[in-house]
């Protein structure tokens, strides 16, 4: 197990290195941060040249990358051009809200998707199944931006049940988490349904029935627990998508999160923040996938972490 984790940590280092290379050069293709800093200031060419030199952006790009890597090794993500804050402190301030939003969204998705997917699978071919499949289709095809606005109009403006936006109290979580959760539950319920269908066709389900167990015991104890494996894998793989989803939600609901910070930084060509933010996201994704892999060994005794047996 320790060996497995070590190997994955080594992978993570390589992933971060590759990401650093890609993000470093690709963000520099998006344009000149200095001109953007002056965007409302209407500067002279002289001023632009001066500031470029001050920020070290006049140096050869490989030199800049070298400095960036050197700092990265010491966990120094640099200083934002735009806020003057260290990128680490900015990430630290935004990662909490994003993680909480993602977790709350995931929780909502699970609460919705599992019942829908299970009912759909168990009542395959019935009206309930049709309804469940329509639900997931709608979930998959709804733009989360639009859904967010609709939920605000209905639950904040018309009904006045929840605040329309903002961050701070539990009430503020409700609408963003439901938006994110609904979108995610579309695809998740579809996956739960197909995993459940596959498992319910397994012979050990017939075995379980032959033990005289109640249907719901069979479905949950014998069916769901086995259907969890592909579902958890999926949720791990979807994690990147989940984070991308939070970006839009953060925008709509004025959520002070990591995704919004990176988007703002891209628009402002705030290189250090984009680089640092993306690298942290990459690390999170690697970590989540590691956790998913580790959770296999709990969910499925056939898979020993390290993968000696399949």
């Amino acid at each position, binding site marked *: 197990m320790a060996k497995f984790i070590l190997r994955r940590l080594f992978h993570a280092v390589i992933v971060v290195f590759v990401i650093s290379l890609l993000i470093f050069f690709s963000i520099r293709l998006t344009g000149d941060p200095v001109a953007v800093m002056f965007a409302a200031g209407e500067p002279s060419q002289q001023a632009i040249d001066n500031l470029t030199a001050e920020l070290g952006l006049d140096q050869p790009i490989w030199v800049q990358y070298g400095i960036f890597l050197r700092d990265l090794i010491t966990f120094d993500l640099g200083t934002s051009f735009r806020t003057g804050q260290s990128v680490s402190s900015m990430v630290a301030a935004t990662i909490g809200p994003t993680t909480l939003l993602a977790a709350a969204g995931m929780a909502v998705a699970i609460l919705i998707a599992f019942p829908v997917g299970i009912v759909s699978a168990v009542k395959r071919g019935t009206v309930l199944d049709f309804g469940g499949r329509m639900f997931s289709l709608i979930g998959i095809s709804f733009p989360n931006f639009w859904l967010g606005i609709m939920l605000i109009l209905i639950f904040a403006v018309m009904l006045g049940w929840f605040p329309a936006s903002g961050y701070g109290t539990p009430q503020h979580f409700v609408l963003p988490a439901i938006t994110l959760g609904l979108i995610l539950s579309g695809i998740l319920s579809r996956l739960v349904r197909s995993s459940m269908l596959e498992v319910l066709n397994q012979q050990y389900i017939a075995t379980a029935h032959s*033990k*005289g167990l109640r249907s719901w015991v069979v479905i949950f104890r014998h069916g769901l627990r086995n259907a969890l494996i592909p579902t958890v894998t999926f949720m791990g793989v979807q994690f990147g998508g989940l984070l991308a989803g939070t970006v839009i939600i953060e925008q709509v609901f004025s959520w002070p999160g990591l995704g919004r910070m990176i988007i703002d930084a891209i628009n402002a060509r705030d290189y250090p923040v984009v680089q640092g933010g993306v690298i942290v996201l990459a690390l999170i994704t690697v970590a989540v996938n590691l956790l998913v892999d580790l959770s296999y060994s709990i969910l499925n*005794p056939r898979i020993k972490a390290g993968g000696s047996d399949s």
Partner: protein
Amino acid sequence: MTTTTTAEPLLQVRNLQKHFPIKKSTLFGGQKQSVKAVDGVSFDVYPGESLGIVGESGCGKSTTGRMLLRLLEPTGGEVIYQGRDIAQISAGEMRMLRKDIQIVFQDPFASLNPRMRVRQIVEEPLMNFRICASRKEARQRAREILEQVGLGENHMERFPHEFSGGQRQRIGIARALASEPKLIIADEPVSALDVSIQAQVLNLMKSLQKEYGFSFVFISHDLSVVKHFCDRIGVMYLGKLVEVAEKKDLYAKPMHPYAQALLSAIPRTVPGSTKQRIVLQGDVPSPANPPAGCPFNPRCPAAFSDCTEIVPELISREGRQVACHLYPADDPQAGQQQPTAV
């Protein structure tokens, strides 16, 4: 072990049917068709006996087996157990009735929940059928049962994937045994196992039957396995029983041409044996579109005009039952659906 003709049947199967609907969508709407996987099967199972049901794959024997526990819902006919038609009772009653009728599946890899420990697999029916009052008791009982199938205490906390195929089938048997059933449906219980293991498992099943006295319905495509295990044998073809006979009678002299063909295909254990092997022509017809008359007629070497027109009934003759126009009824009960034991 031989059956006693006087005993009351444990289980009576009458005209059992399983028709699976298939959709055939044409331009002018769906034309309802069905696959007659099991098409009017009748037989009795007596206490303590082993009834074999043989046939090629797709003949409906496994479907029949599952309908006996209502793991599949019959579309017609009756399964009478203790005077009640179990095709009609409520789902709750059926669940409790499964204590008496158990099943061992063909594939020991697929039939055990991969996420449960062996102990849990065996304890679950003990608790569910209230055979044991406490977890502790169930655990003790599970240990005893596993011991009986040849698995030790050290195996109890393991997961199914840690076992060989033969061991897994022993776990499956232990699980079936746990509820102290009166009847065990064994659906190809050894066909997935290595030949060297098959005999061990069969011997285990046999000795357990001797100890507990339950009945077996032993479903197999392998006549040589059935020969060693069963007292009586029913031969199925295309959803119907074509011959039911005492083992010794059937192996000595199969009457139905299909039974003859099947038996001739058994590998000879004696080298140089000269018996002519009957090779059937053509493929098994689709159960969705069975031939008119006797289902076997397109492949039957002895078919004549009646065979393509009239469906032969399963009738008693020479101490057995056979459904073939070659053998007209020889007793007053001929033509009746009631099968009789000999």
